[in-house]
């Protein structure tokens, strides 16, 4: 037992040096017009070898280390929750969600503008992730191009406001419906593809939409994007310092209070909050309706579901369309928050991050999605000080989460009756 372990450990240590030393230890630098190789400083080299030593020792005593780790109690605050009876668990989850919403309603009045702004972004991601959750978590369709529908929503609002002067409230349903229409039209031909073929095709669609937006300069402004997107109004009251639209009044004049730019930020936040809550409620409703059950049935076993008379196309399409609808929702809010959009905001990485939120949240569980969206948006922001390492840590965290907690933060539990185990 000792010898193969030793060999393996040595091998692992060598691999560590091989993959770390050339990239970290030998730096390509431009010296005037030529490229030369420069050895890194001693600290880097020493740390590479130290890392190799750590790997070596870990692999050598792997069994013992794993055994002692296994003896520790699980570092999981939700672990005991899994033994809770279903009804109690569901009630608890809705209480927690309600609590979060109530807290979120009052919270912006006590914190800084930057935090509220960031929270709005979190809410947009929550909407997106809830929508994608329908497609991926519930219906089991792997969609890597979800950002396309987000872009459709955002651009619909931007274009409508630019060419037709349509306000946020009008554009919100239009943008969402148009995104849903896109989902329907795009979904129709591709939904007969299975699994990973579907993934690459949706990825392709996402890229196509982005490139078209980037190239159709006459309509979308191409890479220049579209600016001057109006902020939402409250019954015809604007939040800007000056009123931009004829016939509107400004919020601070109406109420006779001094202008503060925070009003606008908080108002946007509240809109996003309300929309996110509406999204969550609608999807929750869907999950309990026959169509929601059909999604899950199809995800679990397509053949069995079809033999029970479910129409595969109709069920998949409904999931795809509803998912796209909420992406359009989120897109409209995003356009309004930014005031300016360009195709750069709708790249593949964005799709990947939304998907990561869904998976991290535990595929299907709404509370999980909310927690994951908060984590994924806030963590990189907190790490802005170590800007260089931010994305490195983000990538590593994604891998580690998948390895340590693949079921997500809050795995979804369906209501079911469990027979008492016989032991």
């Amino acid at each position, binding site marked *: 037992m000792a010898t193969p372990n030793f060999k393996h450990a040595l091998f692992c240590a060598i691999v560590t040096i091989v993959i770390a030393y050339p990239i970290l230890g030998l730096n390509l630098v*431009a010296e*005037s*017009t*030529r*490229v030369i190789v420069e050895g890194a400083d001693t600290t880097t080299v020493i740390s590479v070898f130290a890392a190799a030593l750590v790997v070596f020792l870990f692999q050598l005593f792997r069994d013992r280390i794993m055994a002692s780790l296994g003896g520790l109690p699980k570092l999981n605050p939700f672990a005991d929750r899994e033994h809770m009876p279903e009804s109690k668990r569901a009630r608890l989850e809705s209480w927690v969600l309600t609590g979060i919403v109530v807290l979120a309603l009052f919270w912006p*009045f*006590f914190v*800084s*503008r*930057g*935090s509220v*702004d*960031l929270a709005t*972004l979190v809410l947009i991601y929550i909407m997106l992730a809830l929508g994608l959750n329908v497609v991926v978590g519930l219906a089991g369709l792997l969609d890597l191009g979800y950002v396309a529908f987000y872009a459709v929503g955002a651009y619909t609002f931007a274009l409508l406001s630019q060419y037709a002067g349509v306000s946020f409230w009008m554009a919100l349903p239009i943008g969402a419906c148009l995104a849903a229409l896109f989902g329907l039209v795009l979904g129709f031909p591709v939904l007969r593809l299975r699994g990973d073929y579907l993934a690459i095709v949706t990825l392709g669609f996402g890229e196509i939409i982005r490139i078209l937006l*980037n*190239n159709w*300069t006459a309509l979308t402004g*191409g*890479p*220049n*994007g579209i*600016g*001057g997107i109006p902020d939402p109004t409250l019954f015809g009251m604007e939040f*800007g*310092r000056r009123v931009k639209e004829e016939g509107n009044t400004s919020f601070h004049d109406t109420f006779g*209070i*001094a*202008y*503060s*730019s*925070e009003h*606008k*930020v908080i108002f946007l936040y509240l809109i996003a909050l309300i929309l996110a809550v509406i999204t969550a409620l609608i999807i929750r409703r869907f999950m309990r309706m026959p169509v929601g059950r059909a999604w899950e049935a199809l995800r679990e076993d397509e053949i069995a579901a079809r033999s029970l008379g479910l129409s595969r196309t109709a069920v998949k399409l409904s999931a795809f369309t509803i998912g796209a609808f909420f992406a359009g929702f989120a897109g409209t809010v995003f356009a309004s*928050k*930014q*005031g*300016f*959009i*360009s195709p*750069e*905001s709708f790249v593949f990485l964005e799709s990947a991050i939304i998907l990561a939120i869904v998976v991290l949240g535990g595929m299907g569980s709404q509370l999980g999605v909310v927690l994951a969206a908060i984590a994924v948006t806030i963590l990189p*922001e907190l790490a*802005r000080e170590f*800007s*260089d390492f*931010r*994305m490195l840590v983000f990538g590593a965290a994604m891998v580690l989460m998948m390895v340590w907690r693949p079921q997500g933060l809050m795995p979804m539990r369906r209501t079911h009756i469990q027979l008492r185990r016989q032991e």
Partner: protein
Amino acid sequence: MKTSVKKIVTAVGASVALMSAGQAAADIKVGIAGPMTGPVAQYGDMQFSGVRMAIDQINKAGGVMGEKLVAVEMDDVCDPKQAVTVANRMVNEGVQYVVGHLCSSSTQPASDIYEDEGILMITPASTSPEVTGRGYELVFRTIGLDSMQGPVAGNYIAAQKPERVAIVHDKQQYGEGIATAVRDTLKDAGVDIAMFEGITAGDKDFSSLVTKIKQANVDYVYYGGYHPELGLILRQARQSDVDAKFMGPEGVGNKDINTIAGEAAEGLLVTLPPSFDQKAENQQLIKAFNEKGEDPSGPFVLTSYAAVQLVADGIEQAQSKDPYDVAKALRSGSFQTPIGTVQYDKAGDMKSFEFVVYEWHSDGSKTPMN
């Protein structure tokens, strides 16, 4: 309701007053927003090194109205979404003057916030006409516009009487903007434009494009974009014996293009702001940069330096720290900076900003053409 009372009390007067009132220390915060990471981080490096030098020197010389300048640096990765987050954080930090952002697509959404919040912004690098084209009061820049640089390049090419010209751009705000300006100038001059085409930024394979250029048999190729792509195009064009002359904007004019294109960079034409680092009156400053081991020749180093200096001079001139007063002072005065005498027009653009055509050499040096 407690909070709204608090707000009414504090929000008497401009939001600016609110910021400075809450601040005990007698420092003037200058926000610096630009890319520290991401694909264009090297341009960000130029910006930060210019800004740091300026703040250093101004503080050593006694500061502004007796107060020290303090830098608040933030990374926007040149991503519009993060630029908005950064702008809001600048507001949080109580910053009243921002030097940034770098990419036009980041500057634009961020400037909306700054204008709303009464923060004075001077961008040392964004060349898109849109940035100052929206009637904002507090938005300035220390660099010329695409619409200024394009005609310089276009007129130069037209003066050489070429038969056909190809224009290529990288489909980004900066590249396409400037390429369009060049195209319009050439059209007016009656030059035959054989192709006007975009590429994908970040792409590496330009063999098809080069073949197309070769087929079109053009005399000049104008490229709107940055050096990584142009370097490859030059190199691949040389491989297939394209003998057209290439030309690009200041975004291609740095030594990195030589490491990519090698010999093929010889004879490339570049429109650049006049090399401020060659001017006699700047030698003192250049020496300071060299002593710090930094390279002052990048296109955005001295424009960033000038931006900070303008903030300081503007405050001195206005004898007030209110950004609106400073903006007024900037518009009315005339300032001596390393990039020449700066005077602003109503939009916030410099009244004159010169571009010069240089010929680039394979050893990274350049010689003026006119």
